[in-house]
């Protein structure tokens, strides 16, 4: 547990932590080609070299409204069940290990975050929601269907 590396990022104004094994890279956003007929949190397709990424607007999943284009900054690239996704985040602050490991969730979590948050991870005294990137994809599947 001690050696677990976390990426700390910010989504929908909320600090989050992601286990680094889930992450392939963090890239600056390029052009996104929209996909018609999709729920709002699916921002579209983007090309990363010869790969095509499905871009997920995570903030839209939480808030229900798409993030304005100028606020789309970075994307976490992840390979989830052999498809490549880019998860749009507002910012990335740090990658480091956390000595005390994940802590249980305390307090009443807002329903929007309920399906995604697994635990709390503290970095430099700040609490971050520990999320799994795959959870952003799977519930989305049921929403889209």
């Amino acid at each position, binding site marked *: 547990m001690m050696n677990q590396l976390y990426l700390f990022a910010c989504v929908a104004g909320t600090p989050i932590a992601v286990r680094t094994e889930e992450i392939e890279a963090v890239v600056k956003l390029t052009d996104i080609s929209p*996909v018609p*007929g*999709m729920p709002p949190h*699916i921002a579209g*397709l983007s090309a990363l*070299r*010869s790969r095509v990424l*499905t871009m997920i607007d995570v903030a839209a999943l939480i808030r229900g409204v798409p993030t304005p284009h100028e606020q789309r900054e970075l994307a976490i690239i992840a390979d989830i069940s052999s498809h490549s996704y880019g998860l749009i985040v507002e910012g990335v602050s740090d990658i480091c290990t956390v000595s005390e490991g994940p802590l249980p969730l305390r307090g009443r979590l807002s329903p929007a975050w309920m399906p995604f948050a697994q635990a709390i991870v503290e970095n430099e005294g700040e609490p971050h929601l520990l999320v799994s990137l795959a959870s952003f*994809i799977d519930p989305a599947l049921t929403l889209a269907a």
Partner: protein
Amino acid sequence: MDELLGEFISETQETLEALAGVVVEWEADPSDRDRLDSIFRFFHTVKGSCGFLNLPRFERLSHAAEDVLSEIRSGRSVPDPATVNAVLAVMDRIGELAEAVASGVSLPSENDDLLIAALRQDSAVAGKTVPTVGSPAPPLQKSGSSINSLRTIRLPLTLIDQLMNGVSDMVLARNELSRKLRDHISDPDIDSAFERLSTCVADMRDAISKTRMQRVDRLFAAVPRMVRDLGRELGKRIDLDLEGGDVEMDREMVEMVLDPLTHIVRNSIDHGIETPVQRAASGKPEHGTLRLVARQSGNQIVIEISDDGKGIDTDALVRKAVQNGTVTPDTAARMTEQEKLDLIFLPGLSTAKSVTAVSGRGVGMDVVRANVERIGGVIALENQPGRGLKITLRVPLTLTIIPGLIVTAGGQQFAIPRSAIVEILHENNATLSIARIGGACIATIRNTRHSMIDLEDVLGLPRHYQAGPRTVMVVRSTSGVPFAMSVASVDNHEELVIRPASPLIMATGMYAGMTLPDNGQPMLLLDAGGLANTANLSNVDEDRGNQAVDLGKPEARPIEMLSTLRFEELTGEERLVRLSLVERVEDIDTGLFGLSGGKAFVHVDGRLLRVANGHHTFDQPTVTALRLRDGDREVCYPVARVTDIVQVPSTPDMALSEGLISGVVLIDDAHLEILDPFTLFAGVPDEPVAPIDVPRCILAESDDVWAKEILSPLLKQAGYDVLIGMPEGHALRPDDVILCVNADTAKALSTDRPIVQLRSATKPHSNEDRSIYRYDRNAVMAAIDSARRGGVA
């Protein structure tokens, strides 16, 4: 060790797959030593490998099988069906075990003993005791040489995919570089270096694509076993014939075709081929034949599955379709045989009388067709009721690269497989009319009505204003009912590298995948069937029998315009004819025209058509002809040439009330006469044209092989009716021409009809010899022609 184990498992599985066919062949012919040897080698190899990998169960099974087989090899026992069954069962068990080891689950072992017992007992019945100690197996050493001499290595698939992606990246980088280079001053040195790089990249891409290719053998591998097992289960005897296993196709494609192929083969055995008793009753050999043929044709792989069973009972299909309301009885009566046959692709229709374990489980040809079309393939049926069925699958060589069209809708670009498109028209095309009623949209194209959708509406995109006409495509959907789809424009035709889209995107059902064209902007591949479903297009009652007849009426507008075909008469005048009357324009062999009782006719498509303007002799070998139709009657109208399709006001600038010409219009300062369809058709009353009218050649010697086999087809091809032997009792017709091969026959004939004398020598015998060298086609034809003219005149 793990690596060794993995290697062993995958090798075993692969050999098993390859052997499935061999076992069946061996069963068919137990004396086949080669087959027996290769099966024996398999067990021996398994036994040898698992000895040091410590896999005791593999060892016991393979050992037992090896023993039995070695008995057979040494001639001490005979392979009876029970033994073969037992050997097959052991092979299956080894396959299961391999699977289990690979996935790390355990398999109960008590059945192993049963299997082994079955093996031993059978060979004991054959009168032999089974040795319990492993027998020596020397033939292993020579196995390598006979199988293949090509040196190969085994690579993980992921590595190949990685290579493939790497090459795609390279192509994209190359494209970007090429754009950058174009922006700067061109330097021939750099250009040529870049050109070289380009070629290398392209070659590399081709080479890497080849690593993905696999022999069709793999597709066929499971078939012999399936045919054998099913045949046995259903009590049918089937000869299987596989051909073209060395054709190569994309690995993924093989996977995708496997299911439809399996389904078709099962269907064919279950519903197609009859039981030996039924076959004998209908005078067929007791053994049914199932033939699978694969071949490459351009960038497609053609797979034909044919059987000599009972074929499809189209009437039963129609009855069923009428019963469940898919087709109205009215429509059914009008359907052509092919349309009836196509009913089999409708969901929920099957000719199976009862649901059997083998097929008819509610998954039918509709699913097969959907699967084939999903990978850009086409399926076609060739039905001979009572005699068999041939199903042809045409699939692209690779799954990942398909020819596609790029279309624009709502300011965005989409790709659609070329194979899904039947036709592309501009919205203002004369043959197309679009009606909007109660929100629905109907496109009528040349008398066929299609449901029409706007791509923007289905996708929920805004419609941008555009100056030019929109484009309407007729799209073949997986449900089998083509529909019309309107897009802003069709931009390009490109070979597209298709990748699967993420499940999130696939869930909409409107997309079939995604692609990254050369410009680097990701693009979605539309799924034609999915779009139709999303738009809730009705699949039913879009019957093709129910065609609109009167497209000719133009829509009501301030000035009614009429689409007309502009053409030049043989006599030189420029005229117009209503386009809606024109069934088609084609070039017809002038030899097919003729005159009878003062009426001109032409012999096309096995029928005689009246020639509306009376022309029947031409100085060209072919003539352009309009085929005009007044709804049910068709006439032919030969012209010098067709110039254009023009829109003219429906009221001509000058109306004439008499004769063939109904009026004159001015187009681009040329005055053009409009043909009056009424007079045109009235001038050729509907009276049957006697079949006697085809120009006839008589071959005087009925027993001459050359005349019968060589000359007669040539004449028939040239449009003559050929009569072999002099007609007895019938008077000769005035335009008959007689052909003789022997000079004596000609002399013996007493007739006033012209005789064309042929000879087999190239040079004439003497100056008086008027015969014609029989292989001089032109001279023969000219002689017949001049003889006819001479006779008629």
